[in-house]
């Protein structure tokens, strides 16, 4: 009876929420993540979910994506189901464990959920995580709808346990942040704690690793068979064989938008599970004169179908200019690819100007930048290396303080490299959470060589860019810096407020002139987090 009620009632879920609910309903015992747009709300949904609370599902944030996925693998080792969530560039941080977890395989089901950001709405690149899935040779699921996102998160654990490897669940921004009706299914129980049957399964010593790798290679035929039989993949036969279409993930929706009632004249292979279902693709190749590939992200499938010599069926997509080589897809681009005429809409009047994001009024990063600019006025430009966070907006007017934003933690190490090259002083500007995510090891390198750098850890006691999550760095920054070996005489903490401006400028000046590693910590709580904390108290 309960089950029936659940399936009848539809929930209006964002794609990310559908994944969170699916994972809970799939018997997950722990989620391990680091925030990153557009993946953050999966873990937040689980953190606020009553079933997760009742079951005490692990749901605290990890220090970074690598520690997150490693911990999830540990839970899998002990037989329980775990998920790790991250944005696409987070998978770079976790790449070592990701690829090697495919080698060890799993005990309890393990899903690695990765949210890509084509068109770079909130990211520094638009890399396509399906390549990582292919690289690690594991099954990849790519939902076309919120319902599929729910189903894949719920049933992905069983797929992982069946294939004995981690399964990747890949989404993109639009599915992550779009809402639609989702029907829930029965809530599955969690696994019992069960040790791996093979005690050497997780020991990747070369002799064992070679055996494990052969096993992974042998499993590929099973993964292919599962893809070919998957309910997420299907062949939809059309009447017009001049063109066949491969539509991956959400691109399927953009295609069907142009065929009300779901009746497309062309044959379509809908792909939502990889490896590519060869049966459907081969049939499309046999039956159609040309093939159009629609995929969100990079032309991965297109390249696979095209091969090197391009002697077979003409393949159209992002590589031949039928679709743009970069950026996310949308219904308009697909209409053009299909040769459909559309009303192009009205032009944007010239009076409309850009409204870029900006640091909030009252944000402490602003005070830090104003003081830093004044203290740097005596030096040549281009000395501040920055990092990933709200403070990256210090690249824009009126501050224009920073000269780099590359990856998590690169501020400290790039400053060190520039100082090694003779740019003294060099300055790093990094946030509290980014520091504990990937900054500590870089600081250790600098301390070990007494590099002439000043590291500004702008501490707003929160992971703010993604919405104010708890920071692993909270209350620990000074002790970490001292532990790493920074001279306590060159660690300064100050409250970044206008009234402390002169004091801040003085400290910056002194430490820029110091020939060694110094750390300056402007510390004031993120004003967004402070106000939401006050709201929640009411």
């Amino acid at each position, binding site marked *: 009876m309960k089950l029936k009620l659940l399936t009848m009632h539809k929930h*209006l879920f*964002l794609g990310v929420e559908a994944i969170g609910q699916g994972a809970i309903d799939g018997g997950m015992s722990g989620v391990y993540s680091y925030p990153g*747009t*557009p993946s*953050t*709300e999966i873990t937040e949904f689980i953190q606020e979910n009553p079933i997760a609370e009742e079951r005490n599902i692990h749901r605290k944030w990890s220090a970074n994506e690598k520690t997150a996925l490693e911990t999830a693998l540990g839970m899998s080792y002990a037989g329980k189901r775990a998920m790790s969530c991250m944005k696409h560039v987070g998978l770079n941080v976790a790449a070592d464990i990701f690829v090697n977890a495919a080698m060890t395989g799993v005990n309890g089901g393990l899903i690695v959920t990765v949210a890509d950001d084509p068109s770079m*709405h*909130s990211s520094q690149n638009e890399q396509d995580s399906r390549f990582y899935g292919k690289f690690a040779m594991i099954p990849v699921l790519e939902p076309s709808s919120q319902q599929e996102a729910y189903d894949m998160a719920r049933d992905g654990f069983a797929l992982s346990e069946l294939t004995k490897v981690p399964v990747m669940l890949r989404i993109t921004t*639009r*599915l*992550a*942040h*779009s*809402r*639609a*009706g989702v029907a829930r299914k029965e809530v599955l129980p969690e696994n019992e704690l069960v040790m791996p049957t093979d005690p050497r399964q997780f020991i990747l010593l070369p002799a064992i690793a070679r055996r494990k790798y052969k096993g992974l290679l042998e499993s590929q035929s099973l993964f292919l068979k599962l893809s070919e039989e998957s309910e997420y993949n299907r062949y939809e036969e059309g009447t017009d064989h001049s063109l066949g279409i491969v539509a991956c993930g*959400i691109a399927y*929706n*953009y*295609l*069907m*938008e142009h065929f*009300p*009632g*779901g009746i497309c004249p062309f044959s379509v292979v809908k792909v939502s599970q990889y490896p590519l279902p060869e049966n459907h693709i081969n049939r499309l190749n046999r039956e159609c004169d040309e093939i159009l590939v629609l995929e969100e992200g990079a032309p991965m499938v297109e390249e696979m179908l095209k091969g090197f010599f391009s002697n077979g069926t003409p393949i159209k997509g992002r590589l031949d200019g039928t679709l743009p080589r970069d950026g996310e897809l*949308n*219904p*308009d681009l697909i*209409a053009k690819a299909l040769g459909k005429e*559309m*009303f*192009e*809409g*009205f*032009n*944007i*009047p010239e*009076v*409309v*100007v*850009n*409204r*870029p*994001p*900006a*640091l*909030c009024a009252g944000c402490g990063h602003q005070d830090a930048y104003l003081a830093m600019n004044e203290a740097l006025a005596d030096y040549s430009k281009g000395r501040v290396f920055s990092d990933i966070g*709200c403070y990256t*907006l210090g690249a824009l*007017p009126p501050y224009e303080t920073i000269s780099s934003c590359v990856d998590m933690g690169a501020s400290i190490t790039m400053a060190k490299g520039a100082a090694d090259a003779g740019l003294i002083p060099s300055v790093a500007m990094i946030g509290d959470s980014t520091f504990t995510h990937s900054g500590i090891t870089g600081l250790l390198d600098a301390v070990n060589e007494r590099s002439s750098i000043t590291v500004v850890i702008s501490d707003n006691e929160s992971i703010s*860019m*993604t919405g104010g999550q708890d920071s692993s760095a909270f209350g620990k920054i000074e002790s970490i810096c001292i532990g790493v070996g920074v001279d306590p005489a060159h660690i300064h903490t100050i409250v970044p407020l206008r009234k402390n401006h002169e004091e801040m400028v003085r400290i910056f000046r002194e430490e820029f002139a110091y020939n060694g590693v110094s750390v300056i910590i402007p510390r004031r709580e993120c004003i967004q987090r402070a106000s939401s904390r006050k709201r929640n108290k009411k």
Partner: protein
Amino acid sequence: MKSDIILAGVGGQGILSIATALGEAALSDNLLIKQAETHGMSQRGGAVYSHMRISDQPIASDLIPGGTADLILSVEPMESLRYLPYLSETGYLVTNTTPFVNIPNYPEIEAVMAEIRKFPRYIAIDADAIAKEVGSTRASNMVMLGAASPFIDIEFSKIEDGIRTIFGRKGEDVVNMNLEALRRGRQFAEENR
């Protein structure tokens, strides 16, 4: 029925409260919904938008195709113009006239209004002023929803129900203020369309 709506504003203005009220209304009318939101970096005072699609037939795309939107509903005048490429030949533009100035090069408001008035089907309403009259400027988004309601094919009573659902927790007074805001917005649109 089908209503494809672009909701527009500036990060922090709360355009998603409009989407939530409309979503509740559509659900209680047994309609299907897809709604794509803007999260992340642009929420820091940048331009934000949401694609809201409501239909009695299955909806394929999460994004509205260009040149097909039935309505642009903007809580800020300049932002109402940013999404014109989405509007259909017969679509309506409904916008608040109170500018949100958080950039140094915000254009002259008269120049913005002149562009809006050039458009054949528009409603330009001072939602903040009306919201103040009914009790709080925080109700201005519901004034905007009311002003857009004549152009959305959902029963008005269902939209009222939606407001009751989402503000119910906050008590009778808040519900009534928002309902009044909604009705005043609708009244203005009916008189000025």
